[in-house]
């Protein structure tokens, strides 16, 4: 027996998924142990081991591949507990990290303080040098003054250095020389050079990304080494990979050099899982992958079977947080989850969030002193949750506390408690709908042509009305929905991306330069693939893309470069037509009279790892009666007598017509009236609003 283990170490819970090669998946969950992550992993593994009737030691000994994801880096950034980092930049521009790119949400709100920069102003040092837009040296690097600066840095006890010089992407000479001086003066001090990490235009984006990366190096190196040694000590002899924010994974040594790839790597894995489930269930190549937890709702996209990426990932709020401009899986979060608090504003309007009751005190129904009504309390009042079966019966629920919290709010808007509760869910849904619309409609994607994949502990609660509102008529809720990210890692690929900056135009296209750039990118990736133990040639693919725009524009669209580009002849006509098409799709207009400018060239290496696909079960011919019944409320003014099913007991092929509630240990699926849930051959739940009457199996209701 040879296992594959995937681990998602979250802020609160550690999820573990073990696959045994025969298509069976075992999920384990335990509390995260921040001081030593392996302890939490071992506890979660023990849960899975129990179900597998074995123990942790023998699983680890028989594991060929372990893929590990962690929020360690994200949490360190959020809590500002990263290394003391010096920021070195071109003389004359010390405030790059302070000024950012501007922008603010509410023009009339003067109560918010301006955000502190990621690296303090007093930790910023100006380096005498300057390069121009074409790579020419305007002022040579003054090595003597720079050495003096570095000696000051040494005295201040810094643990890492971030270097971002203006136009280092046009000519990296000065950054490289500075790197050399750092090594001479400061020995082993970890540092990051912006042009090596992220060769993109716009100094703030490059500087911010570089600063974050450098500040993570000391911490993540220590953390990953500890993890590897703990695993080895526990008997693990297989290959260890770390999951990244592009939805792939990398070796520990590689990640130690570029730890920024682990930031937000957890949410990035949900779309990876979504894509595999969609393939298995054959529900299409355009997906909206939702992950709903306690405080946030995360949305990612799969389009034409590819993960949708972004170069704008904000840690914190857009414009005022810190920007990561690496290409990452585009996952948007809104502050709407089970813990979001409902309230009434001055004009008498019902609002939900963004404040959350969190886990302490938590929703009123947790009985830990919370009194404010939350989304979870609303679901309790509507009788969607069985207080006895919350989180598989592992968590006691105070239904009275939930009722009285909702009651208070109901009086203020002069509605019945159930209508108020239903209203809270509707508004929470609306926030989630907007998050989905932002990532779909504003990018020119019609949600009606997509399937929703729902994951996260709160997935089943409201995904159906959301889908209905968006006009999406298919929702897939995987059996392992509550551990979607860890499941995603089970199907991860090794992914490595490289990019290079070369500015050229459609009217004076530098074919040779572009060909040279693509060849160079390819060579870099070829170097990387050599040490990959598990890779076979047929599993390896390299693809290219370009970032382009019309003349005078400053925001790019990414367009794919056809495969033949590799042979050295890049057909500019094809590229230009690709660009017009993309522009029309996203911005409603095309401008064939305009020159197209090309800026960045990207290459991406993917190596498929052997996958353990989910096992198909036999379709049952029998059906099961509901395990119980209770009155639940679906907004029509009447309480409806609703059948309750235990999801794990339902055989594949069962169809359940709403209204109904399906309880599985890690989530509850609310099937609204007029909807149908089907248990697929692989044990997932397919939810649809137009049941095909002829295929309907009679479930005794």
């Amino acid at each position, binding site marked *: 027996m040879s296992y594959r283990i995937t681990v998602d170490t979250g802020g609160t819970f550690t999820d573990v998924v073990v696959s045994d090669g025969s298509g069976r998946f075992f999920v384990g969950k335990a509390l995260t142990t921040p001081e030593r992550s392996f302890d939490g992993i071992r506890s979660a593994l023990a849960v899975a081991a129990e179900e597998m009737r074995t123990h942790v030691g023998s699983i680890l000994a028989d594991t060929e591949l372990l893929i590990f994801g962690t929020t360690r880096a994200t949490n360190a950034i959020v809590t500002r507990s990263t290394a003391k980092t010096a920021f070195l930049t071109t003389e*004359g*521009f*010390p*405030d790059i990290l*302070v*000024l*950012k*790119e*501007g*922008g*603010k*949400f*509410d*023009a*009339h709100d*003067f*109560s*918010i*303080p*301006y955000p*502190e920069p990621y690296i*303090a*102003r*007093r930790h910023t040092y100006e380096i005498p040098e300057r390069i*121009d*837009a074409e790579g020419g040296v305007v002022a040579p690097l003054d090595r003597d003054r720079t050495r003096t600066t570095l000696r000051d840095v040494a005295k201040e006890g810094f643990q890492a250095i971030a270097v971002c010089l*203006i*136009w280092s992407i046009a000519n990296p000479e000065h950054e490289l020389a500075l790197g050399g001086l750092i090594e001479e003066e400061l020995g082993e001090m970890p540092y990051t050079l912006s042009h090596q990490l992220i060769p993109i*235009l*716009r*100094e703030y984006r490059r500087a911010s990304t570089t600063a974050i990366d450098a500040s993570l190096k000391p911490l993540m190196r220590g953390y990953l080494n500890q993890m590897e040694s703990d695993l080895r000590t526990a008997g693990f002899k297989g290959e260890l990979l770390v999951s990244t924010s592009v939805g792939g994974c990398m070796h520990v040594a590689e990640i130690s050099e570029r730890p920024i790839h682990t930031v937000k790597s957890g949410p990035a894995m949900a779309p990876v899982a979504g894509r595999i489930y969609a393939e298995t269930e054959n529900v299409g190549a355009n997906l909206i992958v939702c992950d709903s937890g306690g405080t946030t709702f995360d949305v990612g996209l799969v389009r034409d079977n590819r993960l949708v990426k972004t170069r704008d990932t904000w840690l914190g709020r857009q414009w005022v947080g810190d920007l990561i401009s690496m290409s990452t899986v585009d996952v948007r979060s809104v502050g709407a989850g089970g813990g979001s608090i409902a309230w009434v504003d*001055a*004009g*008498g*309007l*019902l609002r939900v969030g963004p404040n959350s009751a969190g886990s302490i005190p938590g929703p009123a129904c947790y009985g830990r002193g919370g009194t404010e009504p939350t989304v979870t309390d609303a679901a309790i009042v509507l009788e969607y949750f069985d207080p006895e079966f919350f989180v598989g019966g592992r968590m006691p629920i105070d239904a009275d506390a939930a009722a009285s919290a909702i009651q208070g709010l109901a009086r203020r*808007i002069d509605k019945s408690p159930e209508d108020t509760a239903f*209203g809270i869910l509707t*508004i929470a849904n*609306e*926030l989630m709908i*907007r998050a989905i619309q*932002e990532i779909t*409609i*504003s990018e020119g994607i019609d949600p009606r042509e997509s399937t929703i994949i729902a994951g996260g502990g709160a997935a089943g609660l409201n995904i159906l009305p959301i889908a*209905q509102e968006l*006009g999406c008529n298919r929702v897939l809720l995987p059996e392992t929905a509550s551990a979607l990210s860890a499941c995603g890692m089970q199907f991860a690929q090794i992914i490595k991306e490289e990019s290079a900056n070369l500015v050229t135009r459609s009217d004076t296209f530098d074919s040779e330069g572009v060909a040279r750039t693509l060849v160079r990118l390819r060579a870099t990736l070829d170097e990387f693939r050599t040490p990959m133990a598990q890779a076979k040639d047929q599993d390896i693919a390299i693809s290219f893309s370009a970032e382009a725009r*019309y*003349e*005078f*524009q*400053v*925001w790019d669209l990414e367009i794919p470069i056809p495969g033949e580009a590799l042979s050295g002849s890049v057909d500019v006509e094809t590229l230009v037509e690709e660009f017009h098409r993309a*522009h029309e799709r*996203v*911005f*409603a*207009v095309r*401008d064939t009279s305009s020159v197209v400018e090309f800026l960045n060239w990207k290459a991406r290496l993917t190596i498929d790892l052997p996958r353990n696909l989910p096992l198909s079960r036999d379709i049952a011919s029998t059906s099961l009666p509901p395990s119980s019944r209770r009155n639940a409320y679906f907004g029509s003014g009447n309480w409806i007598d609703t059948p309750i099913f235990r999801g794990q007991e339902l055989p594949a092929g069962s169809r359940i017509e709403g209204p109904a509630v399906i309880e599985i240990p890690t989530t509850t699926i609310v099937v609204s009236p007029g909807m149908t849930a089907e248990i697929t051959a692989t044990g997932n739940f397919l939810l649809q*609003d137009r049941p095909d009457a002829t295929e309907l199996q009679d479930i005794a209701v």
Partner: protein
Amino acid sequence: MSKTVTKSDESLDPVQMAVMANRLDGIVREMSNTLLRAGRSAVISSARDFSCSIATAGNELLSSAEGLPGHIFGTQLMTKSMCELHDDLAEGDAFLHNDPYLGNTHPADHGFLVPVFFEGTHLFTVCAKAHQADIGNSIPTTYFVGARDVYEEGSLIFPCVRIQRGYETIEDIVRMCQARIRVPEQWHGDFLAGIGSARIGERRLVEFCQTYGKDLVQQFVKEWLDYSERCMVHEIRQLPAAKLHNTGAHDPFDPVLPDGVPLSIAIDIDPDAGKIDVDLTDNPDSLPCGLNLSEASATSGVLNGIFNCLNSGIPHNSGSFRPVELHFRENCAIGAPRFPHSCSVSTTNIADRLVNMTQSAFAALGDGYGVAEGGCGLGVGMAVVSGEDPRRDGRYVNRLMATTNGGPAASKADGWVTFAIPVIAGLMYRDSVEIDELKYPIHIKTMRLVPGSGGAGRHRGAPNQEVIYGPRFAELTAVIPCDGQVYPAKGVLGGHDGSLGASYHLDAEGRATKLPNITRVTLKPNEWLRGLDTSGAGYGDPLDRDPEQVLHDVLERWETEDRAHNVYGVVLTRHTDGTFSIDETGTVTRRAELRSNG
């Protein structure tokens, strides 16, 4: 899946209303995203000097999301002119509107209006309005302070002119623009982005109507405006009754306005009636230059200042404008200039002073009310630059956004650093050094915040910035319409004034010559412009500022040790390892000393 919503005679429930209002804001955001990403000139695509909004067919502003208040608070005036001038509105129409005498802000703002029809009825008008890089003025600037009248200003004016019929562009209009506007291909790209944005708004509104049905949509529009009014009335009722009077002034403009422009405002707050009455009639007659405020600009300036003093979260639309009554005087520079006076600089200079004057007036209500004055003036870093770019074999023209004035302090926070000017209030983006140098043949030498420059106070104004740039290959012309070099942003409740701005010309030998505040200058390679912006003013007495915050300011180089001691009265002890600590007793003594000195 269609929504099953039936129209009822009763009012909409709060849930339904919130859902529909959110949906409209989402549409405006999508319009904005289109304009930003597809725009060509840096002023649109980098700086985001544009706004999108939705008005009702009855010409009430309905939804505006994160639009610039200066742009959107007058949308209803523009759509009104569309309805009055055209009795043949039809699906597929689009209009270009930049006439400040017909409801637009100033000629540089090209508004694209599209009437939205559903089931044959005109239900909404969407508006995408963007500040252009050039509009064909007689000199290369979109802010022509010296323009004696509209004829000298020289802009092409479109008094709500049809530019699309049946979704087809009327190319005559496009050719007129291309024949007159500098760098026509840049303008044309921005034009397409504006049309694209309005059409996306139209498409989404039609879907919105399909989802909810015409009756429900119409009911929602009425109730949403009423709800917004209720929110506003509620806020006004929280204020004390008062008659406020405040004055302000724009800097002199030699030789036309040697003493500058004196301004005044009278605000009557009547909490019982839930009304605010604003009188702007005691202001100068139409000015013989481009500083006059159009009705749209004056209206937005006042509303902007008032909203700055109220709880945020009130929807900004014609409903919440209802409780505010404005009084303008015919042939007055503020709100009702007489044709053919120029409104070329209508959206910024005096409009900024109007926002400042309004929000600082509220401070007279006592501690906790109002906002200090924000830094103002379009200095060296916000000049319109133009010239030849040998790298492209062509001309360039664009408004820079390479620096910013400091934001004002308020009762709860220090000033916002990337504030820009009061009418922008931090909403716009900043240029990237690399993007500016890539797009235009300029070299930027320095861009830095100046320590110790923010107006002191219990909360301090944000600091000013220094910027130095010059041409790389050939001559560069910069047109600078600056304010804030004579009259600073004023502090309130004991807060200090902000610092003054300044512009300098540096010759090839590095010799500096101070430039007039409003100027047009041509530089050769190796010559430079150096600009200092204005900073924001302080709120409350600096001697009441938390010493810990003063220490942080010194450590983080927002403030100097000298000012900590002499302005804030905080005594810091510097240790041998370079760290500081607060000398508590020394601070008490020092503050008492400074207080008694007055």
